[in-house]
């Protein structure tokens, strides 16, 4: 039987898609790289996922898991063909209030989980900007962060267990509510592995209690340097708030045109700072933030008056990338991370690179973590533009690495940064990672060609991986 016939007999006719338009819709994530799947399957149960994995192995075709497709590095783009497995129909939530945990289907939307948990006085800490659409499965695959992982850590710190379909269709449940599961932390290595080691069908996540009190401050500066210096000063002084986000003027203008969040568009940069906890703590900490901001020549500090005001500020922050649609047809968002003491210098270098290429760069980033998101706006229909944008982007990443940084803070490597891995790691380092992949996926069918550059396995002369295909960039 053909691949599609096999899949249809394992699932149902209507949950195996193969029409050209359907395939096109699933041909890329939110990155700029496109692939082409043979078919798309919409699984509803773990057993179905296991069956799809076995069928993929029988037909020796790749299998690419996908949540909402908000990834930015082509992690969910089927660039090697094969099956795209969408988890969006796997969206059960089972909450355990006493243990402050929940088993959550891979297709559950991040924000839906927190909304569901709110009546119990709980929430899920990782809050990527795409949280109103991205899925838990995608968060697990990318070890997603977000504004509030500064104090609470990224997704991996909140995943206590996983149900995973491994090679051969084997279903395992790893971890649990009890701490320190014996043996190797297989669950931990699957988090952030971008669907290359197996397919996560469900996650046991930690839920945190809602904070008794919160203070959100909007601080505006006449220079970007003063804003970043304020953040560096806070961390250096041993003060880690719940969130520390910076946005530059150009980005504020774009957001204001659309959402009217109340951002100071005449300022060069704004710092959105938040502290949570006991009332006595947040009162004192908000005062400390103001003091440090004024020491760095802040023009003004505005305290969110109520929950509605706070929500508006955060909506403005989290919708920033969407606001770019009014500026240019395309944007290329980078994600790198530098030591927090190197923020000022790195931001400066990024701007210089953009100037040299004559490109518009917008900045909105998780300053407290040193996690930069320079965003280049452009029109891909302009001759030679995409190439220019790519080269500038690569220089920006290189500048971050020179400042002691890493390739990606929260978006992942996927296909986009795969070939830059050699700038961060030695051949032996990459070989060790390739061996890990091999232990999980000897046939190389789980999301092939992602994370590791071709030939990462030392002495791997005839591997099945190919260079990034011509035309993958859209």
């Amino acid at each position, binding site marked *: 039987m053909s691949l599609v016939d096999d899949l249809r007999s394992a699932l149902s006719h209507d949950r195996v898609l193969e029409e050209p338009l359907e395939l096109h819709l699933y041909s890329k994530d939110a990155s700029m790289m496109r692939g082409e799947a043979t078919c798309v399957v919409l699984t509803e149960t773990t057993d179905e996922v296991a069956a799809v994995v076995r069928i993929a192995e029988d037909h020796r075709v790749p299998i690419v898991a996908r949540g909402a497709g908000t990834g930015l590095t082509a992690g969910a783009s089927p660039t090697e063909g094969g099956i795209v497995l969408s988890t969006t129909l796997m969206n059960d939530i089972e909450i355990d209030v006493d243990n402050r945990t929940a088993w959550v289907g891979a297709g559950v939307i991040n924000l839906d989980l927190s909304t569901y948990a709110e009546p119990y006085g709980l929430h899920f800490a990782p809050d990527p900007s795409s949280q109103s659409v991205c899925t838990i499965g995608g968060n697990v695959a990318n070890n997603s962060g977000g504004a509030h992982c500064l104090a609470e850590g990224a997704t991996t710190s909140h995943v206590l267990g996983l149900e995973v379909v491994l090679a051969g269709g084997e279903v395992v449940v790893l971890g649990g509510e009890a701490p320190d599961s014996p043996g190797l932390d297989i669950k*931990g290595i699957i988090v952030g592995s971008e669907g290359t080691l197996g397919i996560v069908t469900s996650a046991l996540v930690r839920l945190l209690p809602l904070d008794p009190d919160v203070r959100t401050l909007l601080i505006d500066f006449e220079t970007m340097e003063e804003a970043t210096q304020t953040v560096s000063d806070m961390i250096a002084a041993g003060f880690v708030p719940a969130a520390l986000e910076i946005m530059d003027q150009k980005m504020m203008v774009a957001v204001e045109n659309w959402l009217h969040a109340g951002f100071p568009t005449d300022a060069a940069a704004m710092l959105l700072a938040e502290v949570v906890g006991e009332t006595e*703590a947040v009162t004192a900490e908000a005062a400390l933030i103001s003091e440090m901001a004024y020491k760095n020549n802040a023009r003004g500090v505005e305290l969110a008056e109520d929950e509605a005001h706070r929500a508006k500020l955060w909506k403005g922050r989290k919708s920033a990338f969407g606001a770019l649609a009014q500026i240019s047809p395309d944007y290329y968002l980078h994600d790198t991370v530098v030591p927090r003491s190197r923020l000022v210098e790195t931001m400066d270098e990024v701007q210089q690179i953009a100037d040299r290429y004559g490109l518009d760069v917008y900045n909105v980033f998780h300053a407290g973590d040193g996690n930069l998101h320079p965003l280049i706006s452009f029109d891909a229909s302009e001759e030679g533009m995409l190439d220019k944008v790519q080269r500038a982007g690569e220089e920006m990443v290189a500048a971050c690495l020179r400042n002691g940084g890493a390739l990606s803070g929260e978006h992942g490597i996927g296909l986009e940064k795969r070939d830059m891995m050699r700038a961060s790691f030695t051949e032996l380092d990459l070989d060790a990672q390739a061996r890990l992949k091999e232990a999980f996926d000897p046939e190389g069918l789980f999301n092939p060609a992602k994370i590791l550059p071709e030939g990462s396995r030392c002495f791997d002369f005839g591997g099945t991986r190919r260079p990034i295909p011509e035309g993958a960039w859209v």
Partner: protein
Amino acid sequence: MTHPGDIMRLEAEIAGVPADVLAVAPSTNDEVASVLRYASDSNKVVDVLGGGTHHGYGSPRQPEIVLSMGRFDQTEAWNPEDLTVVVGGGMPIERLEGMLAERSQTAVLPEVPGSSTVGGAISAGMSSLRRGRLYGTRERVLEVTLVTGDGRVVRAGGRVVKNVTGYDLPRLVVGAFGSLGVITSICLKLWPVPPAAMTVIVDDVSAADVVSRPLAVLESDDRKAVFIWGTESEVEAVSGRLRGEEIPGLDWPVDPAGSLRWSLRVPPANTSEAIAKLPGGWRYLAVHGVGDIRLASDSRQGAGALRSWAEGIGGRLVVTESPPASLPDFDPWGEPPPAIELQRRVIAQFDPRRIINPGRLAGGL
């Protein structure tokens, strides 16, 4: 016994190591690599020695080589303004935390470590008593350098606090008991220590419900205490709400002592029930909100029933220290963990001859 010259040069005197066991104390990655390559080539079991405080786990095989990490005790880089530190695997926790305290920082490693080293605590997966608020040791490890069983020097992760560049090997080595390699260098994420702290003795752990996310709620045989830290005003206000005897600072208890020591791990909501189920005479220190209960006893009586109960609710009863041959027919880890064959395949990629600490991991790995 004869050994190649470059190995003999690394020979060192290590207290307690029998004469027929080769004791070495390398000081560089290359030296560790040459020892491990030699051990792999000649199939010799290597015991990696830090502070020797976590040597009671699992069913270790008799070592032919003891590799001391004593010379990997340096601070390679400390960037207080970035809240990161890079240390050698043999760095004693107490010395590191003492140094960090001078700048009001902590690596959130175990509070009463004895002679434990950073590499040892990571390998054994030991966490701080503050883990309910500040998370466990796995959340602190940003970068590791490993020397694999076949002598490759491998680095993974990075010296930044947020990083998804490649597979998360730094977290995989936590609790791996050296099965992926000898940890020679570690970059840790630090946390600021706020200006004020208080230990409040309470009658019942439910008293802590008036505090949002306390630093720790600990219960031992003779004491229940809530640990608070933060700004002066916060600590004063919160301590007042708890209405118990106040001890300024963080008055950490020590793990209970006994000839047999255990780690009981249960879902957090079962912590009080677990304490009620302990056999008579067993001493305990429980971390509420986490389900991490450290136990000591002088006999194994009741251990089987306790383990059955724990495993029935998704927990574990693990032997962490026992006199030789005192627990025949009692697996130190209990039922084997899931995906054991996958674990074996992963380990084989790093320590193909399985020479580093074999038998310590659960499932006899």
